[in-house]
């Protein structure tokens, strides 16, 4: 993990993005693994040192991947929007996988030596929440994929409302409206589910 390779696949990602912008839907599928691998590599180099304490934002990760993967001289704003859309989806997967692995490790009982400081407690709680959000989001996607995607872009991808509007070719007002309801629905879904569990 120490040695970062030279910008991997630069030409491919840039070219694929341009094809996506030109309406080639199949290009998205070829783009996904490239972006996933890069994000995963970047994220794991940060997450491995998680316990040391750090502040890391999805936005920063996604931006870093953007810089590494894409030839900046060849792309325009719309390509950037598409890239971030794909990256958000991939970030979700990476973060949720990481949270799952973390929770599994705890349950496996192999981590008793970890000191119980506040920082770690918060972080554990956060892992559980992340998994819950992911599951609720998958449920939401079944009947309102638009809202699910907006949540993905904003929460997991760290995109601003304006960026999301650009990705979805929509207005900021619409994005805000969807976000508001999706968040309410997810909150009620998760808290409701927890309440059910407790009953």
């Amino acid at each position, binding site marked *: 993990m120490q040695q970062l390779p030279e910008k991997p696949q630069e030409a491919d990602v840039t070219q694929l993005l341009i094809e996506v912008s030109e309406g080639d839907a199949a290009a998205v599928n070829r783009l996904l693994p490239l972006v996933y691998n890069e994000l995963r590599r970047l994220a794991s180099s940060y997450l491995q040192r998680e316990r040391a304490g750090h502040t890391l934002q*999805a936005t920063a990760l996604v931006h870093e991947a953007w810089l590494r993967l894409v030839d900046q001289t060849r792309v325009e704003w719309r390509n950037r929007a598409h890239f971030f859309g794909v990256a958000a989806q991939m970030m979700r997967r990476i973060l949720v996988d990481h949270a799952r692995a973390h929770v599994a490790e705890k349950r496996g009982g192999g981590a008793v030596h970890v000191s119980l400081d506040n920082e770690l407690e918060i972080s554990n709680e956060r892992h559980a929440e992340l998994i819950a959000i992911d599951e609720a989001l998958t449920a939401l996607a079944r009947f309102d994929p638009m809202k699910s995607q907006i949540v993905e872009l904003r929460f997991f991808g760290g995109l601003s409302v304006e960026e999301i509007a650009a990705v979805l070719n929509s207005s900021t007002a619409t994005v805000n409206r969807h976000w508001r309801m999706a968040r309410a629905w997810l909150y*009620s879904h998760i808290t409701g589910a927890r309440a059910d569990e407790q009953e």
Partner: protein
Amino acid sequence: MTPERWSRLEEIFDAALARPEPERESFLAEACGGDAELLAHARRLVAAHDGAGAFMNTPPLAEAAPEDLKGQRAGPWLIEDLIGRGGMGTVWRAVRDDGAYAHEAALKVIRRGFDSAEITERFRRERQFLALLNHPNIARLLDGGATADGRPFYVMELVEGEPITEWCWKRKLALRERLRLFLDACAAVAHAHSNLIIHRDLKPANIFITREGLVKLLDFGIAKFFLPDLPSPIETQAAQGVMLTPAYAAPEQIAGQPVTTATDVYALGLVLYEMLTGSRAQDVTTNSPLDWRRIVCETAPARPSAAVSESGVHPPSGLRGDIENIVLKALQKEPARRYQTVQQFAEDLERFLNGLPVKARADSLYYRAERFVRRNKLAVASAALVVLSLAGGLAVALYQARIAAYHFQSVKSLATALLNEIHPAIEDVPGATKARLLIVKRSLEYLDKLTAANPRDPALLTEVSQAYAAIAAIQGNRNRSNLGDYAGAMRSYRKSIEFRKRIEEIAPSPRNRQWIALMYAEAARVYPTTDESLEFARSAVAIGEELALTAPGKHDAWVLPNTLFGLGYILTQQEDAPRAIEAFERARKNYVEIRRRSNHWSVCDRYLGLNWLVLGRPEKSVFHYKRALEVDTERMKKDKSPRAEMDTSYDYEGLARSYEALGRLEQALEQARVTERMRLRLAAQDPNDQRARLGLADVEEVIGSILSRMGKKAESLRYLNRAIEARRGFVQATPDSPEDEYELGRALAAAAGAYRRLGQANLAQEHAAEARALFKKLGRGLSLAALEREVTEVTASTRDGGAH
């Protein structure tokens, strides 16, 4: 839930939230119209919306507490409290417990988890920048090293105080007091600039006032060297974009365009705006690059006098007029329209403080004035001036220290960057000679270092060879503005050829041979009358012929005619007219065959005309000049450039000379007058155009000579003297230039002939003697013979005249 019900629920949810809270419950009941399940869903959603609190407001990765280094050691330093947290590092109060430094200091260390290669590199650079700077208004670097776990840290003077803006606001300082503080900040930034460092992240949080009231500039975290060296893998424009602070970013930073000293001028303008008004000029509050672009690149700030808040200068009317114009000039969106250096900015403020007229004008006036200057030209010149002002204050030692630290790759890139990026920017700037000489000197040093190890990598050899060729052209390519170091140019050309030949041994290719031919041809023109030059020109033709035979690709078909043309030129300079004619005939034929642009045909014709004239066959010359004129007249219909007009005027001039030699003086004068009109127009268009000025001297010489033959004494001498005067000017301005000296000789010879014809023997002898000396020095046998012929011939006719 069905899609229909879901979208109905959505409608109700949105409509409910649009209402004031107390009305919501009754609205929900009404909207659901007795559908109990729908109502339950809607109620739950609205309740969830109100009760969700911070749910999902923070992205999953944005958390975790900073590490605590308190009590730990870093080298001889003992770490105390956390002072601050930046983008890549944390700053701690630290003391040195061995007593070597009595005061508290600030210790900056990369945050753990952030010690990637890129960030570590950036951090090292910041340390390096600080080490280069020594100014009372810049926080001083004290020490540096690595922590026990290997992270780099550095220690600097501890600056305790507050941001410059707050300092002014809290104390309700008067305008003059605020400006005085700001001028100190300018001095600090100017010091960085004179060390070739651009800060790039100037903002109130980086300009502190200490408790003692002293300005201190902090945080060179994203600064960069103005001259490109130490190329960093992350130095993409976009990378800078991620690190910048949008509210204090310049338009070019948002747009990913090159950052110059004018970028710091802009940021200082923003700081001054905020110091004076108490409001931000760029109110960027969102995290959206779209908003940044709109606000930073497209929105003009409100006039300071209209933006004064409580913290600003009172009364706000005090900000109207000059001071407002100064601030707004620094905040121009286009870098070229700002102050080009921080000094200029500061000087204008000083002028304001001293009650003198300032340079900044209200925008509309400034704009109107500027429209008279061609826009591109201005932009280029301004950029170049920045380079110059920096190069002027350049410390050689600093440069060398920096260079010594860098490895091979950097040196290579630096040489290339100097030649390809920096030099072109200043090439046409009057007075840039010193900076250009320095660039050449440094580049040669780098290249010599590079080639000391006798490299055999073709890519490297190619680069080196290109660099030597570029240097040679700067030193002494007579076709463009050069430094007049012709001996140096020859050395560089020979080096360039040498490395090309080495490539040919390792990886021969037609393209490489093409380059060798080109280098030979260019080198031949430096000292056109030497044997080496002729040898070079012939070698070039030999390669051209070989390529035409073995690699007759369309893209290199120009090599043969170009080298033939070059040979013709050298032969012309060496006055071997018959061989020159042969070379130009072949060149022209080749150009026509490959349909090379028609101006190549006509330039061959002009040289043919000239050489036939030298051989005493003016009727042949008339043919060639007429043919050239035909082609050029056609070309001028499409091509309105000064260049096309200049070329055409050469055709007219050639015709004038040819008719003069044929004794058809009326016709000759007519053509010469046409030439004169064109040249006057061209010279007026661009007073700096050397070619136009030279051309004017040419035609003055021709007209003077024709008029003398017509017996128009006074007018003739006026023209000839003007021509000689201009020629002397050129010879003085460009020493070691055989061509200028030759042309001076020709003007003198023409004058000698004219004086003879006009019966002024003494003056004729005087001019002839000077011309003779020049021709002898230049080895111009034919011209010498022609001079003697002219003098004798005219002497005979004068004698005849005297006998009557």
